[in-house]
């Protein structure tokens, strides 16, 4: 039997919601610390007040335990906010757990973002060294692998050009190349496979395959279930910071998709926090159930408590296997949208003919405001149903892919 690479025992991470609510100003904080002993005393006598205080804390992870062996690739699956990213953050020592412990046997490398620390003013060469050092490589190692990294990224000619002059594809390739040449015994990866073009992704997957082949351990968080199924043999399924299942990847993916049927359907049933001062109040297609090939309207409503601009809003459409099907880009040529507390942002996108095959789709969004960038997956589900007219019995939906063409057929009788 192979040896243990990662052992997690009763891991828990609690976030205190209070600082996020407070203004972060010294005055308020002083007032709060004066109130604290009083609140504690009150909690002693009053159970209701104690319960209210407990509501201010949030357990992102609780009682999490599992073990991984060397050479194993494990995918972590779960909905938004299930604790996947928090788990990786704890394992990569970015944040401390509140309780429990994790033991790692071997050199740990974590890749929570591609190109952390990349600086646009610096040349490609400088950034390779910098990013390598940030990821935990020694200068000697980077020097040894430098040519290989540059060749992998296919940016030889521009290696001494500042990265700000790179195309976004080149920058991402270079960043990924550095990460791909990190040689830890335990590799933690978060959602980074979704970069670059397909050919480059393939190259990266090949490199990741090499990693497990060499007996190293990989923990992969990805929203793309297909890539998890390809790379991992086992999957850890979590929800509300707790383990729901840990077993063969196909079983866990199936169980996850079964659970997913309870997602919000059609329209949003509660507001979603986008950033400290922005909230999503409405999001979804109208009608809630769209007929394949028919017109549909998409509505977004964001409410702000402080004036800000919305630079980008994109509706992300994924199929039931979480493959990206398409994006509704809601930007306009006239520049960013401005919103104020009095005037929320309401957008309507008209899709003239929804070109999707019947089935269930997951709708998410990517939104960039003055306060930052947020990506929310699985915000609502969209049901597309088949159109009833037509004389031909359609093929089964499972063999028709995802695009429904708006087409007609005629027989060409001209002599050949």
């Amino acid at each position: 039997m192979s040896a243990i690479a990662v052992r997690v025992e009763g891991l828990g991470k609690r976030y205190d919601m209070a600082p996020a609510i407070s203004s972060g100003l010294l005055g308020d904080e002083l007032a709060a610390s004066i109130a604290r002993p009083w609140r504690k005393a009150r909690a002693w006598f009053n159970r209701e007040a104690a319960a209210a205080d407990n509501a201010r804390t949030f357990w992102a992870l609780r009682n999490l335990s599992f073990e991984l062996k060397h050479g194993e690739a494990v995918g972590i699956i779960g909905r938004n906010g299930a604790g996947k990213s928090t788990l990786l953050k704890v394992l990569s020592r970015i944040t401390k757990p509140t309780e429990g412990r994790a033991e790692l046997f071997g050199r740990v490398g974590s890749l929570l973002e591609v190109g952390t620390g990349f600086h646009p003013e610096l040349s490609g060469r400088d950034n390779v060294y910098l990013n390598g050092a940030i990821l935990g490589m020694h200068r000697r190692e980077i020097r040894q692998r430098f040519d290989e990294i540059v060749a992998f990224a296919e940016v030889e000619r521009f290696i001494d050009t500042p990265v700000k002059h790179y195309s976004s594809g080149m920058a991402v390739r270079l960043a990924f190349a550095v990460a791909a040449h990190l040689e830890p015994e335990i590799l933690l990866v978060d959602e980074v496979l979704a970069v670059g073009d397909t050919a480059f992704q393939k190259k990266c997957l090949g490199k990741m395959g090499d990693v497990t082949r060499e007996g190293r351990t990989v923990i992969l968080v990805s929203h793309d279930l297909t890539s998890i199924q390809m790379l991992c043999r086992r999957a850890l399924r979590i929800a509300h910071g707790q383990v729901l299942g840990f077993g063969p990847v196909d079983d866990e993916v199936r169980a996850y998709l079964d659970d997913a049927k309870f997602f919000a359907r059609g329209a949003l049933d509660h507001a979603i926090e986008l950033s400290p001062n922005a909230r999503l109040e409405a999001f979804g297609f109208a009608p809630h159930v769209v007929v394949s090939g028919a017109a549909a309207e998409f509505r977004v409503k964001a409410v702000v408590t402080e004036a800000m601009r919305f630079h980008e809003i994109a509706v992300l459409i994924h199929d039931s296997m979480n493959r990206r099907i398409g994006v509704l880009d809601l930007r306009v040529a006239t520049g960013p949208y401005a919103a104020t507390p009095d005037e929320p942002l309401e957008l309507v996108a008209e899709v003239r003919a929804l070109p999707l095959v019947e089935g269930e789709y997951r709708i998410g969004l990517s939104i960039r405001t003055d306060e930052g960038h947020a990506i929310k997956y699985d915000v609502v589900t969209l049901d597309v149903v088949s159109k009833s007219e037509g004389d031909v019995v359609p093929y089964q939906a499972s063999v028709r892919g995802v695009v429904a063409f708006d087409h007609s057929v005629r027989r060409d009788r001209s002599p050949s």
Partner: protein
Amino acid sequence: MGDGGGSRQTPPSPDLLFVLDKALAQVPSTVETTRVTPSLVIDQTATGLRQGLRDVWAYRELLYFLTWRDLKVRYRQTALGASWAILQPLTTMVIFSVVFGGLAKLPSDGVPYPLFSFTALLPWNLFAGAVARVTASVVGQANLINKVYFPRVLIPLSGTASALVDFACSFVILLAIMGYYAYLPTWRLIALPGLLLLAMGAALGIGLWFAALNVRYRDVTYVVPFLVQIWLYASPVAYSSRLVTERLGDWGWLYGLNPLAGIVDGFRWAVLGAGAFPAGLVGTSLVTVVVLLLGGWAYFRRTEDSFADIV
């Protein structure tokens, strides 16, 4: 549509599968490792002082790269580049010479006033620059803190180190001014590295407090420039420390509680060579700096675990 529905729900692209099958087919069946103790244990306990120092040593290359990036970016984005490091103290020296030397006629221990003030401005600017940079450092590197682990104290350390480069630039100017006034460097210059360390220690000690506080309370960003300005006038930069120590009499060494008093006086002694070594002031300042550093680092370590949760 002959292949209608294979064994998998969604067949991934065959090219991808090929790459993976090839890669995974070669996974060795057993990997024997004989490690018994984990190389890394993660739990809620904070790292101790000794482990903290060991971590910094293990990550010394990253410290070098962070400092190097800071300098490279800073001087690449400015039109005048490194000359800013020279222009700033030179301008201050001219203003001080006109206002305090010329108009107010403050005594300068028999040294030409421009040289007298420039000598003091060197350690002062090192201190003030480092405090400002360190205070802003942790908040400025929020992205790194959220995405990657490294000993957090590297960020303030690299802020202090990059202030040292500005110091080196203006030190060349000091030598030029000394030449102009025909002041020859003496053996006393060997005290400079020690005094430099003391100045950096003072800046780091103060900066660690501010940097950690700044994560939680952004008020610090506004308080620090103001505080540094007051500090300048509380330190013997524009005037001679004798103005203060003579008034304190036997308690003159108390002025060293302001670490800059000892550092600036030490600098003047080492560069201008006037009188005896100000042992009382420097000694008091040394103790103050050590206390500040230990306290600052302890506070920083106590709060660093929550940085990623707040910034």
